[in-house]
């Protein structure tokens, strides 16, 4: 194995014979003249843009105050016909308080097989950050999000975004907030394919229904 390593590295070094020996990587100029965020927006406008872009990629978007969240989740799960829902270990217990008596809550356990997850109807999670310009939610395996597979195998994903705290404008701003070491899933709309004559078809292997709930964390309400 190390012979392959030495061979490849030696070839790379020979191939770069034209690069001056005292040149360091940082001597090669990278012009970062691009924008940190596109356009000037108020916080409220950034949240609106997130909602618009999520909807544009066929996520179902809901906006509520924190106090209404449990009832909304209950309603959405019922409307989807769900009888069971996967729950990450650190999901705030209040969120599913209203749905609890009606639905089977399935904890996110390492021991469960993929087959077991396939039998669960829905999953409810929080998120790490949401990006307005691209309509993206990012999961990083935090306690309210769980293992990557629980948002993949069930056919219905409900994701709660706390606005405005978890919302950033742009991709560069999102990367600044995220820890590279954590496994991440960036989600922009439900899974889709355009492989058949370029017709967009939603829902191939990931959840076919993605619902994003923007929860206003400041319960006093604002304009």
């Amino acid at each position, binding site marked *: 194995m190390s012979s392959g390593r030495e061979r490849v590295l030696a070839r790379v070094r020979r191939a770069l014979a034209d690069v001056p020996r005292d040149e360091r*990587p940082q001597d090669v100029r990278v012009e*970062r003249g691009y924008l940190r965020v596109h356009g000037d927006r108020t916080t409220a406008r950034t949240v609106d843009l997130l909602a618009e872009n999520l909807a544009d990629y066929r996520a179902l978007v809901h906006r509520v105050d924190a106090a209404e969240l449990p009832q909304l989740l209950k309603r959405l799960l019922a409307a989807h016909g769900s009888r069971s829902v996967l729950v990450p270990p650190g999901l705030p217990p209040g969120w599913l308080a209203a749905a609890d008596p009606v639905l089977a809550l399935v904890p996110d356990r390492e021991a469960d097989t993929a087959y077991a997850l396939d039998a669960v109807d829905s999953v409810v999670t929080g998120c790490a950050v949401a990006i307005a310009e691209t309509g993206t939610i990012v999961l990083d395996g935090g306690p309210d999000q769980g293992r990557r597979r629980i948002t993949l195998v069930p056919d219905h994903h409900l994701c709660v975004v706390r606005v405005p705290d978890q919302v950033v404008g742009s991709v560069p701003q999102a990367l600044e907030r995220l820890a590279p070491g954590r496994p991440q899933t960036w989600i922009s709309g439900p899974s889709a394919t355009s492989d058949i004559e370029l017709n967009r078809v939603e829902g191939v292997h990931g959840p076919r229904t993605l619902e994003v709930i923007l929860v206003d964390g400041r319960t006093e309400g604002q304009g």
Partner: protein
Amino acid sequence: MSGTSGTYLGMPAFPAAARDAVRNETLRGNLRHATHTIRDKRAKAVAELDDWARLRAAGRDVKERTLRHLDHYLVQLEESVTAAGGTVHWAADAGEANRIVTGLVKRTGRSEVVKVKSMATQEIGLNEALEAEGIRAYETDLAELIVQLGDDRPSHILVPAIHRNRGEIRDIFRAEMGSWGRAAPAGLSDDPAELAEAARVHLREKFLRAEVGISGANFMVAETGTLVVVESEGNGRMCLTLPETLISVVGIEKVVPTWRDLEVFLQTLPRSSTAERMNPYTSMWTGTTDSDGPRAFHLVLLDNGRTDTLADEVGRQALRCIRCSACLNVCPVYERAGGHAYGSVYPGPIGAILSPQLRGIASEVDASLPYASSLCGACYDVCPVAIDIPEVLVHLRERVVEGGEVTRNGERVTIKPAKGHRGERAVMRAARWALDHPGALRAGQRLASRTRRIHPKRLPGPGRAWSDTRALPEVPAESFRHWWQRTRGGAR
């Protein structure tokens, strides 16, 4: 010879294959519809970002920095991946890579693997190598599934089954799904939603039982050891998170220095490839994570001609490619000839400069590829990492016609001028003249416009057969870049 994949050996040279393709009306109709649709959408997605030109320049710079110090970044990447619990392997050529992967799969005791679309594994013919050892590889990307079931070859980087229409796909599913696993439902129609559903059901049983996943990667971050896979369907997430063992085969040029560098490519790649603000799913992982995803992660770093390409100071820029396929969708030659005519996993303009460098120009098909272009420059204008494809094409044509020093399998060798190409030297000299006159460059004109006066009505050499059946597209008098500077760019 171990540096080449057997998959495409015996392919006819570009002109012969293109002639057949151009006569195939269905293929041409599918391709025209597809390339025009994506092309228009892409233009809209790009126009949303008023700093596009600067993102493009930054993408070029980041890749340039990486390539000029590739040894440094590869060693750093190896350290980061290892520190995060992964194992790094190095493969100088296709044979070595296939041996490593086959060995890793065998050690798991499994005889099947699920795969997410990866050009690197197609390039090395991994599926065939696994098959020879009794290991079945299931392609899980919808288009790859169509290609695999149809016993076909991909024809587009991003939409590999772009040459198949819905009726053909239904027929393939009906006829073949049963022998690979769950059969297509009775009465399957050609409705795209029904076809996608059939694929979902067919593949799900494979995902749920999968123990070994094989992937490529769009990016590898040297500083953190993070790998990134950009996809749409969710089959990537399935392959990356459900199996116990994950093996990623990635070309050494896919490394980027820092986490922050992703901010450039995660903006330019989705808009350039699928014309979306962001693709549905992007997965990022760093080594292994306790109780989440695969317990074992192996990264196979693949050379297979990349260092030979790196050794060519003009051709090196081809290694910046992020495989977005924007250049295919704007290419008038690709639109009419189709992906198969290029005789390689890398079709279109990027294939025309990458394949002859990765594989050398010993074969007829590879020697003819630099001619599979009208040098109109549209590919350069859309390329998100600003690869000057026409410049490299002219450079490679010169190499074919005049011979000279190249690097093959890490050794400097001198190649002789190709025999059938002597007649083209005059054209070559004219093109060289244009390149050697920096005054023309200062005027901000593209190569295509610069060589407009000497632009042949018919392509020279092997390209002639193709252009005989088609009038060559007119080269625009004003290049995109010039127009850009005159309009938007001038505002700043």
